[in-house]
């Protein structure tokens, strides 16, 4: 099945794109997808532990099962506002 992956902040610079479609096996979870992404885009490996993941615009845990057409966002630590 196909899912849409969104990249934000420095991940957009690292990957060179703001979104990409990925094929994952039926029943795949977020951690499965992250392992795939890490293999395809080794440059994001370093960032992964600090990320949060959203599925269809809600924070989601690593064992969340994906559905076709899900929108999965890789979110670097946020820095809204001003210090």
């Amino acid at each position, binding site marked *: 099945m196909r899912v849409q992956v969104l990249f*934000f902040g420095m991940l957009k610079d690292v990957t060179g794109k703001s979104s990409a479609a990925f094929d994952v096996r039926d029943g795949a979870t977020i*951690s499965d997808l992250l392992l795939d992404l890490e293999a395809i885009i080794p440059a994001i490996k370093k960032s992964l*532990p600090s990320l949060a993941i959203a599925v269809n615009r809600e924070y989601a845990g690593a064992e969340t099962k994906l559905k076709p057409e899900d929108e999965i966002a890789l979110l*670097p630590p*946020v*820095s*809204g506002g*001003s210090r």
Partner: protein
Amino acid sequence: VKSARGSHASMVGSPIDLASVLGKIRRGEDGAVVTFEGVVRNQTRGRKTLYLEYEAYEEMALRQMEGLAEQALREFAIREVAMVHRLGRLEIGETSVLIVVASAHRAAGFEACRWLIDTLKRTVPIWKKEYFEDGAVWADGEPFPGDISVGNLTGAGSTGPGDASKLGVRD
């Protein structure tokens, strides 16, 4: 201007109009209106900043901000909340985020306002890029709270599937 359904939160691409937000929120029963403005500073660790650019995962950020406003209204003795975040290029001295809390008494207003900005800065998907004379960098964000960060589930340092149990879905 994009606003969330409940309309406590909005995102704007032009300067935030403080007077307008204050004018809309004030009511006769309020004894206190607490305002926080995040402002673009002219330097970071001694390095001169030229300007900032903010970007957001807009639909999610609005939903998150709205959720924080609703949570604050439930958990603090306050009457109303308004949150506005600006996106795009901001110059030194401009306001990037505005939080206004109206309440009968000041203590709850200060507490709610502090909680709102602190939580926004850790959980609402907005990022800023700082432009300096010799280049640009994405600002280091604050670490996500443990319950929403990927942690060391994958990649170097993985200690196995046991970590997954720490990754509860938020709310």
